[in-house]
């Protein structure tokens, strides 16, 4: 897969960080309007593709984490979230589980159970195989 190339270099990282900051502000305002689903959608969109820059990845994760933790009604969320977001959401859930942080893991496991019920094991496989979206 190394041949696919196109990894973002450090000078590009600044642009990504700016985009993430912008995304963060948008999510905050959506959360203030109690639109957690819209916030999560915004968070899942435009994850930095093919970046190796850890700073970008963690900045992006903080934003997505904020949106994931704001979810209260998991069933309601999944029924209003389009199926195209399932795979990338699953990938972020595994990122959340890897943090080992108790409240994060609790929340991720809760969503994981419902998401697996809805999207199946195929969704987990796709999130494992995904090499385009860096989370």
């Amino acid at each position, binding site marked *: 897969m190394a*041949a696919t190339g196109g990894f973002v270099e450090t000078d590009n990282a600044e642009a990504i960080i700016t985009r993430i900051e912008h995304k963060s502000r948008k999510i905050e305002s959506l959360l203030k309007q109690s639109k957690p689903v819209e916030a999560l959608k915004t968070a899942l969109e435009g994850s930095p593709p093919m970046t190796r820059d850890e700073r970008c990845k963690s900045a992006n994760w903080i934003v997505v984490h904020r949106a994931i933790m704001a979810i209260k009604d998991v069933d309601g969320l999944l029924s209003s979230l389009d199926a195209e977001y399932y*795979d990338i959401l699953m990938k972020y859930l595994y990122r959340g589980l890897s943090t080992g942080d108790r409240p994060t893991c609790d929340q991720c496991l809760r969503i994981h*159970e419902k998401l*697996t*019920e809805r*999207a*199946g*094991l*195929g*969704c987990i*496989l*796709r999130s*494992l*195989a*995904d*090499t*385009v979206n860096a989370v």
Partner: protein
Amino acid sequence: MAAIAVHQFAQCITCHAWSPDQSMVAFCPNNNEVHIYRLSQDKWEKVHVLQKHDQIVSGIDWSARSNRIVTASHDRNSYVWNLEGSEWVPTLVILRLNRAALCVQWSPKENKFAVGSGAKTVCICYYEQENNWWVSKLIRKRHDSSVTGVAWHPNNILLATTSTDGKCRVFSTFIKGVDTKDSRTGPSSDSKFGEQILQLDLSLSWAFGVKWSPSGNTLAYVGHNSMIYFVDDVGPSPLAQNVAFRDLPLRDVLFVSERMIVGVGFDCSPMVFAADERGIWSFVRFLGERKMASSGSKYGSQFSEAFGKLYGQSKHGVSTDAVEPSRSRGGVHENCINCIVPLRQPGISTVMRFSTSGLDGKVVVWDLENQADLSDYL
């Protein structure tokens, strides 16, 4: 019910193929042999054992018109078997490989066959009359990894391959003296041997099980990330569709008609996909008795089973075996299905019957007759 016959032939079957009249089946019971069984008076009888390979036989194909069997094996060789009297006589085909041969298929005219290998190459083999010898011509330096599947276009020239580098490729296999000019049509019209017509980079993980539709207009293959890919207009500007499904990945597919495909794999039950009037492909349902309504609860039970194992509470009291078969879900196969073969009726392009074999050692024959909801697509 769609499964009309279930035969437990061995512990595990790597691949199988049917004789032209479908009275005999050849399969490899996960070793270096090929067993041929014949149905006589409702009982399957072992009639031949083909012993020549040194390692696991990974591919078998039985040609429909010339009644020849070609086998490919991890021992890096292929044999073409001819029936002389009551004996199958092997002819060694030197493939010139340094890795295992993984799959094999006769071309539609049966004058060539293709072998995919772990050596990142595809061998196109043809018979040379003057030397009484099968010659292997290699397509090299095109694949970045093992070739897991090969499929011939009905025009006998184009060959599609899948590879563990995640790509699906289409090559011209025109060989002077074997193929005639008039058979060259469409995108292959002036391409030389080994020329790459198309490379599809749709999958992010291993690709398996490539097939052409009966007309050769559509190409389908599967990815190990629970996706299936459909490609129309194979040529300079292909149209691709990616279909994600909710269950475990597929290993192989079969076009039963232009608009319907059956996929088999790690989910143990064949899945049906079909194209609507606009040509949009989607998952229809599983074949077999499995009820769709129970799909919600099965994950719960599966997880509790897994947790039971985790905490050493054996829920079912048994399972002392080191190797457990995959969950069967009430289906016919009890483990991964890795091979699907059509049972064609002469003169009909639609496949009404096909057989599957897998790691559970069963060969299952399926019939699509009386499947009311599927008949629209046939």
